[in-house]
């Protein structure tokens, strides 16, 4: 089927896989037990805004839903656009479970409006035990896999920390096997 689609030039947009997202809660516990790293209570959803009234309506509904959810759970939320034109919904909540639920709410709302293919990634922020080093767990929607991203200053990555995290998480989460797909997210709007 995939071959035929390519031959006829009608490849379809890749639908997002949302289920593996809930694995983050368990992974956070594993990371804390094995390596002493803790979630910083911040997470973000990144997507590519589409044009037209359809997307505007979806954004409006998303905002209302999120405001409600945020008010209930006592978390905070902000929306920013980065320099590549992608939109980030940044959520903060000390409870990991609430955070994951909020992230899932953003995803499912977009998907219900037919904008699932616009989802790029979700990011959960973590810090090492001494608090000195930060890294992010990035969820790729189209692959249904996670990978660690540990930025250093000057657009360099802490590969050692990333591979360490990968080794720790191996059993708990589907970690992206192709290292070439661990793409960098410089200047992502998380602390």
């Amino acid at each position, binding site marked *: 089927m995939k071959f035929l689609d390519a031959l006829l030039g009608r490849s379809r947009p890749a639908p997002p896989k949302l289920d593996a997202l809930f694995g983050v809660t368990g992974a956070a516990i594993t990371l804390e037990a094995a390596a002493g790293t803790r979630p910083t209570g911040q997470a973000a959803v990144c997507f590519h*805004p589409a044009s037209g*009234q359809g997307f505007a309506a979806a954004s409006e509904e998303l905002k209302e839903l999120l405001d409600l959810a945020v008010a209930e759970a006592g978390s905070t939320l902000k929306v920013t656009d980065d*320099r590549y034109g992608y939109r980030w919904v940044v959520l903060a909540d000390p409870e990991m479970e609430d955070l994951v639920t909020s992230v899932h709410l953003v995803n499912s709302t977009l998907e219900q409006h037919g*904008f699932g*293919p616009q989802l790029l990634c979700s990011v959960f922020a973590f810090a090492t035990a001494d608090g000195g080093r930060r890294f992010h767990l990035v969820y790729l929607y*189209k692959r249904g896999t996670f990978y660690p991203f540990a930025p250093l200053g000057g657009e360099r990555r802490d590969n050692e920390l990333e591979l360490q995290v990968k080794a720790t998480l191996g059993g708990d989460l589907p970690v992206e096997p192709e290292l070439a*797909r661990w793409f960098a997210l410089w200047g992502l709007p998380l602390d």
Partner: protein
Amino acid sequence: MARTRFQADAGLSSRMLLTMFLLGLLYVVFVAVLVALLGRQWLPLVLLIAGGFLFFQYFFSDRIALASMRGREVSPEQAPELHQMVDRLCALANMPKPKVAIADSDLPNAFATGRNQQHAVVCVTTGILRRLSAPELEAVLSHELSHVAHRDVAVMTIASFLGILAGFVVRSSIYAGAYGGGGWGRSNDRDNNAGAVILLVVLASAVVYALSFLLTRLLSRYRELSADRTGAILIGRPSLLASALVKITGDMSRIPTRDLRAAEPLNAFFFAPALAPGFSFSSLFATHPPLERRLEQLARLEAQLGRPA
């Protein structure tokens, strides 16, 4: 649950399928004619030599195209923003990342090449980097990535095989006819008969060549439309691609003719064809659909986005 807002374009797919079917049919008929006229003993050689060309073109398409455009591969450190854009589009489209290259040319254009996703290269010219805004460049890149996803280089190389084969037969038949003939005919000493056979082969090949030329061009135009469509859907903003198209084609007609000619052999893989102004090809021979047709398709997609869920 609505998975995507865009409707499939069954018309485009079926027109493309019909074109490919006609090309295949033409191929079968041509081989049958060659067998009938030449006998079996020469056919393997002809197919082997033409196949050699095809093989070369297929396996080295990325290097040939890059070299003739003087494109050089750039690392993420050399062009961080370009790489970041490609990274994200690949993550959105769920495809492996192609190599990224930049060609030093003021001609605003971009092309994708390589036989499959693992060997793909996406190349942009410095001219396009300078002229387009970042979102427009992203739209152009998503068009090129769609070419990679659709394996357009492989499809078009195989589609053009028939043309190569027919052209090769014409040339070698004329050569054989001029130097003593007989070599192609069923080996006997009736020279008149052999001459007639060669003439028939040349005629048949010329007709096949012309027909396959038209069909491959038609196929190329359909594949451009497909790439426009898929690219626009990927970023969800069809009008961005439209504005990039307008900007590029508007700019290109102002570039001096000499530069344009230098880039012409690569047209089939370009984002917008680089034809000199006034050099009027009939639309039948064009590798790319007319701008109006492309803009119209993008406007239709934009309208689908505007509809309430």
